[in-house]
């Protein structure tokens, strides 16, 4: 810690000293020992690349402003911006900034009378450092623009957080009377589901992209069920429906195990393929293994003319825990 502070102080001291020397030394007009030609064309190119990078960054913001922004375009604009910055920096490093190799002479023994001259020499060296670049302000402006462009592109997505989210995450198409349909839109017949079977179902007429739409429907023997008392009647003929979205990281739950011989095997459960969170289906989706914290939300069902229909909303919030959802459990 102490060593680091000393290093930083050392840097500060060196820059302060350089500034003092530049301010207070006389400007010698002697012919310089060397001439470094400025590469003005390279400077122009570098500046235009950086300005283009700024434009690409702003293009990201513009695309992001659309509600149904194409994520591929977003990625492309950021990629172009970063590539342009990289190209500009490579160009600057190899053509704009002077490249030369110098040999430093062994320092002569110090003579106290020459101290003032040493200071002048140091000032000259520092000034020579700016040789070879003519349009500093243009380059500075270009670099600044690229920084601003990329910076706004990086910060713009913050607008998606916080209050802007609204109740989009909590929205659910499920209420009493909504029919369950298969992926092809056909209503789900209760009789088609074998005991020990599972099926992915959706809410009739709802957007399949919506988080709460998809269901994992399973069927067990009715006498196996150990549902809590307030959920009696939620599973007609042993058919249970759960949200297909894992409460840990919102992966789609696509694994179902159903033992052929329950006495000697693990019980029926839904398993998430991402991190193997495992939910017991018999007691209403309680977590029995894995990183998920909350139980899987259950959807009450009833059978209407042989077809499966929701009998109410989910038992809990669908998807990963966040904000209030976590507190409420």
């Amino acid at each position: 810690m102490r060593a680091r502070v000393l290093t930083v102080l050392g840097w500060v001291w060196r820059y302060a000293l350089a500034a003092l020397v530049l301010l207070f030394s006389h400007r010698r007009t002697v012919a310089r020992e060397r001439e470094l030609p400025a590469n003005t064309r390279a400077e122009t190119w570098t500046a235009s690349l950086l300005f283009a990078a700024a434009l690409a960054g702003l293009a990201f913001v513009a695309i992001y402003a659309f509600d149904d922004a194409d994520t591929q375009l977003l990625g492309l604009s950021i990629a172009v911006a970063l590539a342009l910055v990289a190209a500009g920096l490579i160009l600057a490093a190899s053509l704009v900034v002077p490249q030369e190799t110098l040999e430093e002479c062994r320092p002569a023994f110090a003579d106290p009378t020459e101290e003032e001259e040493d200071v002048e020499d140091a000032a000259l060296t520092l000034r020579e450092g700016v040789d070879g670049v003519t349009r500093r302000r243009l380059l500075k402006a270009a670099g600044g623009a690229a920084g601003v462009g990329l910076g706004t592109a990086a910060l713009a997505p913050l607008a998606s957080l916080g209050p802007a989210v609204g109740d989009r995450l909590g929205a659910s198409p499920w209420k009493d009377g909504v029919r369950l349909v298969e992926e092809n839109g056909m209503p789900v017949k209760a009789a088609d589901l074998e005991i020990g079977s599972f099926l992915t179902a959706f809410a009739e007429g709802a957007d399949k992209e919506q988080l709460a739409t998809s269901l994992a429907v399973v069927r067990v023997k009715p006498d196996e069920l150990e549902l809590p008392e307030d959920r009696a009647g939620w599973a007609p003929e042993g058919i249970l429906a759960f949200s297909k979205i894992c409460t840990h990281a919102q992966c789609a739950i696509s694994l179902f195990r159903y033992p052929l011989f329950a006495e000697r095997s693990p019980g029926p459960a839904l398993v998430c393929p991402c991190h193997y969170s495992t939910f017991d289906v018999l007691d209403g989706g309680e977590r029995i293994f894995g990183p998920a914290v909350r139980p899987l939300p259950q959807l009450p069902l009833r059978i209407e003319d042989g077809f499966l229909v929701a009998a109410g909303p989910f038992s809990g919030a669908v998807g990963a825990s966040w904000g209030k959802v976590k507190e409420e459990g």
Partner: protein
Amino acid sequence: MRRVRRVAMGAAALLLGAFAVAAWAQSPSTSTSAATETATAASMAELGRSSLVGQGRELFETSCSSCHGFEGKGVKGQGPSLLDAGESAADFYLRTGRMPLDQVGDEPLRGEPRFDEKDIRALDAYVGSLGEGPAIPKVEPAKGSASEGMEMFTESCAGCHGIGGKGGVVIGGYAPPLGEATPTEIGEAIRVGPYLMPRFSEAQITPADVNSIARYVELTEHPEDAGGFGIGHIGPVPEGLVAWLAALAALLLVARLIGERAGDDRDDDEAEQPR
């Protein structure tokens, strides 16, 4: 009750057979009628079947009944009842060497079959005769469509077995790789739901769908690797890893090239006039 009927039918078949033989022996000069011939064939088949069931029963008593109980009624805490397991379940478990288990409670895993073809058929017939379980399905992958099969497989199988059929884990058990499974075994497993696997009715996965799934699984055994390297066919994680490694190497190469270019310039300067 079923057994009584079966024994009665066997006896009837025997009588019929004897009668047919007698009839044939008594009238060697006249041609036998078509009706009699059909009756004979049918009764012979029934006879063969019941004797197969008898053989199977004997084998079952010696090899299976300690866990599955007398007449396949099951033993509490040892093995399940096989009354409605059907020929399909018996055939699947015996042909893949999953039964008999070394130890009660083990997960049944694929191995060398413990019985020969004749014994397996006998046991299949016997277990099938116990109740209303599913018969051995006739699976013809040639009649299926690989693309429909892939769709069905994605929806109902890939969660555990992986989209490439390379197997996986469901907490509490393995989902085996499907490389060695024959089309018939695939059809049987879909209906039986062995160990922890779910099972599917014919309304959910029709026999035509089973053909398609079997065709797709055959395809996964010899996948066409467009890139030339399948990376185990276990999905996007290893593929992403390889992409990262390749990108890392490419970046190093670019950095090296940029560095070399700068190095060349420096050499030129030095050659000019070192001061």
